[in-house]
């Protein structure tokens, strides 16, 4: 969902994930939530993000009919909700600016010269 919002940057999405440490958290499965979120997600970015975190099970191409498949929903659920980047960074694809992620919290605040 996030992008680099540095002034002048036109293509700040998707941010490249730099993984130092990631954790898997158990989250209760809720198919309504997944169906609600599916059309709002930039699928390619999610696939790439999951891959950087070592999860390569997501299919490259998707359409909404796949939401009927329990197996697909489980994979989607895992990638979207259970993989957390604990330590690392989100890197702007255009400028290389690193947004540090510490204790699971991305710091998206800009410096004075980027506003």
């Amino acid at each position, binding site marked *: *969902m*996030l*992008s*680099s*919002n540095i002034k002048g940057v036109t293509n*700040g*999405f*998707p941010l490249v994930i730099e993984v130092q440490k990631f954790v898997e*958290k158990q*989250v*209760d499965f*809720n198919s*309504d*939530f997944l*169906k*609600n*979120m599916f059309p*709002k997600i*930039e699928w390619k970015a999610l696939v790439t993000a999951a891959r950087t975190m070592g999860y390569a099970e997501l299919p490259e191409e998707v359409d909404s009919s796949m939401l009927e498949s329990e197996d697909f929903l489980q994979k989607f659920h895992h990638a*979207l*909700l259970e993989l957390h980047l604990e330590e690392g960074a989100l890197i702007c694809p255009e400028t290389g600016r*690193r947004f*540090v992620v*510490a*204790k*699971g*919290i*991305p*710091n*998206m*605040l*800009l*410096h*004075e*010269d980027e*506003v």
Partner: protein
Amino acid sequence: MWYLCVFFHRLLDYRRPEVEALAELFGAFEDGRESLEWKLPQLNHPDSPFHFVNLPSEDIARNIANRSILVKGMYELWGEGCSYEELEEAIKAYPDECKLPYLTSESTFRIIVDSFGKVISFEEQNKRIQRFTYIPFKGRVNLKNPEHKFWLIETDEYGSNNGLPPVVQRRLFFGREVGAADRKLLPTYQLKSRKYLGPTAMDAEMAFLMANQALATPGKLVYDPFVGTGSILVAAAHFGAMTMGTDIDIRVVRDGRGPECNVWSNFKQYGLPMPVSLLRADNNLPPWRPGLKEVFDAIICDPPYGVRAGGRKSGGRKLLKGVIDPYTVPDDKRLGHIPSTAPYSLAECIHDLFELAARMLVMGGRLVFFYPVIREDESTETHYPEHPCFTLVAACEQILSLRYSRHLLTMVKKGPYSEEIAAEATRMHLDFRENHLKWLEDGKLHSAVFSPINYQNDGSVESKLNKDSKPKYRGKYV
């Protein structure tokens, strides 16, 4: 069908809007209506806890009552009257086909005697229960866990100085309970047993009311842009919604008070699902990817209005005033650099909140937030901020002090977002700031709330204080 809806006698402004919001959540408006029909019992003051509400089905009435915070009970009324004789007649006249299914020999029941504004002794209660021999109860009594609960509720003349609206006439109600609020939630979630608290953590009862106004429910994504310790999102998560929050203060969201005392631990404490994401960002310069729209089902927040906590945004004070030029952070210092922030006036903050909500809420999504109002001049009408995408559905006042109150505004996104709308909103914002809300600027509200009273004007101010310090009828203060 009409139900008797009895409220807890608190947060008077919040009672009907909560029921209206839950009615929408549970599908009472599927036939295209937009609000519920309400009636007051005869001679009742609007602040009275007794209301009649028309709901499409008993299931909806039960769902509303059970999920609510302020509904003491929703009842199928079997009879009412000014005296026990009148009540008896009314109950006898109520059709048998409505009564008998709840009086069968296999069922268990109990009768509860309740009153508003006075206390009825245990002995008196028993006497009143024994009068009901004319109702053919066939079931067994079960005080602990009955299938059906019947309530006899009385209001009567009481002393006039107890902060309750005056009762004109004695009134008795008898009905079968359909549902009631689960107030056990409140001790469970009360702030004093919460691990991680901030100075402006939202009271549990209010947080639940906000989550109800936002229609938080499983499958939805609820966002708080001023998340702090997560006190509002906890309530939304309790109702099953997925949550997400941002804050500009990284210490609050990232560090908390240690590994077991932070925003995450507040969710863990109640066994609730963790927020899907917490991040540090500035609402003045939000980091969402271009083209990201309509992801949140609701936005709930308590924006910083500068009385107990002030807002901050990116950029130094001098920088924004143009006193100094933007400086370049040296490359070797970038990693640990702490960007400077500047005060963030409420007017600007509300504008950014609208912009965020207009863009990021789904159509029909709800924006629920607190908005401070100075009470000094009661004659002038309150102007709420407006946005072309949003329709105000409820405004509930909670009085905080003699000087100011906060209003919980519930808005529904009715129009789609576009660049033109954003430009129009900016124009409205400037106009609004110009005409209504000078005090919303930096620090003005704070001084309006905390500055000493000017006794030189004496008379008016002092008499007002004296008058208010011993209110006969407390109304919204409860």
